[in-house]
């Protein structure tokens, strides 16, 4: 499954959320991450994030795709991050 995760959280928790997300997903730009993830890891990630965020103030939105086959991705301007497996 391919997901895009965007977050908008209080300054205090930004770093924690970012760090957690980076262990599962590729950083794309500020507050946006994406990547392939297994069902199990998806559940894990959600559980771990909900422990970090304050549900009254923060919001995390996750877009789920069964496969990235049917959508295209365009970048205007600088490409800041994203998936690469040949470094």
């Amino acid at each position, binding site marked *: 499954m391919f997901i895009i995760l965007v977050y908008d959280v209080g300054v205090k928790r930004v770093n924690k959320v970012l*760090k957690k997300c*980076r*262990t*599962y*997903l*590729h*950083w794309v730009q500020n507050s946006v991450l994406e*990547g*392939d*993830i297994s069902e199990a*890891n998806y559940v894990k990630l959600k559980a771990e994030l909900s422990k970090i965020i304050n549900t009254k103030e923060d919001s995390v939105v996750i877009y789920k795709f069964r496969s990235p086959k049917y959508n295209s991705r365009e970048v205007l301007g600088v490409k800041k*991050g994203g998936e*690469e*497996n*040949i*470094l």
Partner: protein
Amino acid sequence: MKKTIYIFSSGELKRKGNTLYFETEENKKYIPVEDVGEIMIFGEVDFNKKFLEFISVKEIILHYFNYNGYYMGSFYPREHLNSGYMILKQAEHYTDEQKRIELARRFVTGAGKNIRQVLKYYNNRDCDLEDGLSKIEELCSSIPTMQDISPLMALEGNMREQYYKCFDNICKNPDFVFEERSRRPPRNYMNTLISFGNVLMYTIVLSEIYKTHLDPRIGYLHATNFRRFTLNLDVAEIFKPIIIDRLIFSLIRKKMITKKDFDKNTEGILLKDKGKQTFIQQLDEKLKTTIKHRDIGREVSYRRLIRLELYKLAKHLMGEKEYEPFVANW
């Protein structure tokens, strides 16, 4: 499916923020640790024990290759699937001559059938391979009569020789003539590609073995000895024709790799970094592509196919179901 990370640049790999972090002079990058299955290192990379501990816990294998692209070794994390039972079964099938030759024959049969499939495909397109095909059919048919390992190995060698003779007809490119198999070091462009591809295939199968209860040290067609892992060599025989060789043909026929991608020096001929990267990129794509599997009735990737092969082997060793090698049907 977990990804493979290939590193060509030089830099430092470390544990940072509970994930992997790769830093070079120009570039900094976090790699999601939960999404990594193995790391293949071609460049000069520094790391410390803390990093090794971390990837050990995460069950990530590290393979490293020297400057020339030869396999040098692996950091093989502590075995996390410890099955004494499976090792006993594997050894039992090795020491019993009859059981060993039976398995070895199946590996050769699988390799032969897949070779035939590849040749058939190109024969139906625009290459005249009738001659090679009939010779390989003939060799295949005498596999069941083999009673010893060494004649079986010789037969496998003959089969490959016939197969390699067909390469020139398939590629139709004077830059990539096959001549004869030469390795350590390879002495022409074609041999360089074959060697590089085979090395990658062996390490990929090794990584897959790590995820099963099988022990890579006990192989059947290739004799078990003190030096190296051998089970991955056996299993790779089946997949080399359908993955590596097909990839080489399409790379050459589509002119994605040309003679500019090679470096000639006294130590034979080597692929340049750019050539290696193109090769690996295409291989990675290939391993990710899925095919409809007849037996389980759903889409599986080539990489998954390798693991399924190992599960079949495990079942054979436990006496549940006889091992039948995977044969491509397209």
